[in-house]
């Protein structure tokens, strides 16, 4: 990758498609540049983005439950070249959500992936320490899933 100052995130998105033809690169219409990737190619695409495209900073990892699928988002920026954002998305099945972990690329992904695992039940394969982080071990279910049923809220009572 050239150290061209005029390079924009859009260029990176364009190049990504040609660099990884088999990775299912598919731009997503959104407010920020966003690309959907097949989960099994996530690590190589992310490695390319970090090392070649210079997006060296993983801002955050998020999971969203869309009722029919679970998507995991990775927001990438470049700190050195003030580029970004470029978001990577992976779609996963709700029954068996599995995605390779990016801890080997960004140590900052460690706790965030644990949080997504904790709250949404996405399994990050090859994560060194995939345990619940905010909730306790043995908590039933994954609270941020839309079909999560917690204990029913007590109604507003007038006497205690």
């Amino acid at each position, binding site marked *: 990758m050239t150290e061209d100052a005029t390079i924009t995130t859009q260029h990176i998105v364009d190049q990504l498609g040609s660099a990884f033809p088999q990775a299912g690169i598919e731009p997503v219409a959104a407010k920020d540049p966003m690309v959907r990737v097949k989960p099994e190619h996530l690590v190589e695409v992310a490695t390319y983005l970090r090392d070649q495209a210079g997006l060296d900073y993983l801002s955050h990892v998020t999971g969203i439950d869309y009722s029919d699928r679970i998507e995991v988002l990775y927001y990438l920026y470049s700190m050195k070249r003030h580029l970004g954002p470029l978001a990577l998305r992976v779609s996963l099945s709700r029954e068996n959500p599995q995605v390779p972990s990016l801890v080997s690329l960004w140590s900052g992904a460690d706790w965030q992936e644990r949080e997504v695992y904790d709250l949404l039940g996405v399994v990050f394969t090859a994560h060194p320490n995939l345990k619940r982080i905010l909730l306790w071990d043995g908590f039933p279910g994954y609270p941020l899933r839309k079909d999560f049923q917690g204990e029913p809220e007590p109604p*507003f009572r*007038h*006497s*205690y």
Partner: protein
Amino acid sequence: MYGLGILKGLWVTLKHYIDTYIGDGIFTVQYPEERLPLPPRFRGNPVLIMDTATGKLRCVACGICVRACPNGSIALEVGTDESKKKFPERYDINGGTCMRCGLCVEACPFDALASGPYYELASYRRQELIYDKHYLTLPPDKIPSYHAR
């Protein structure tokens, strides 16, 4: 030089020490005896405004505040009076779950709610934290935030 920074720090504290005797160094307010004036916008738990002329509540029991409350702390029971006008038969605020965000006051389209001036709210029993209509009713001149608007 080694020790100079420490001496500088010591000088600062000594200055503060002397200031409390000869200057206005003391900053604390002796709370139960001295009280700071309540700012007009102070956000206590909401109170119902009573019209001083008629002695009736302005509230028409529309229920917008109940829907605006993030915590569901308001319980409203609607009643109708002789002239078929709606009024709050019961209007309870659960002070234990109310977080004094003031969204109900903002939502009220009739200016019937205002942020109250109450701030010493500790109680021994949770039951005492449920404020009923009589506790919450105040005339406008007792409500600092009402005049601020």
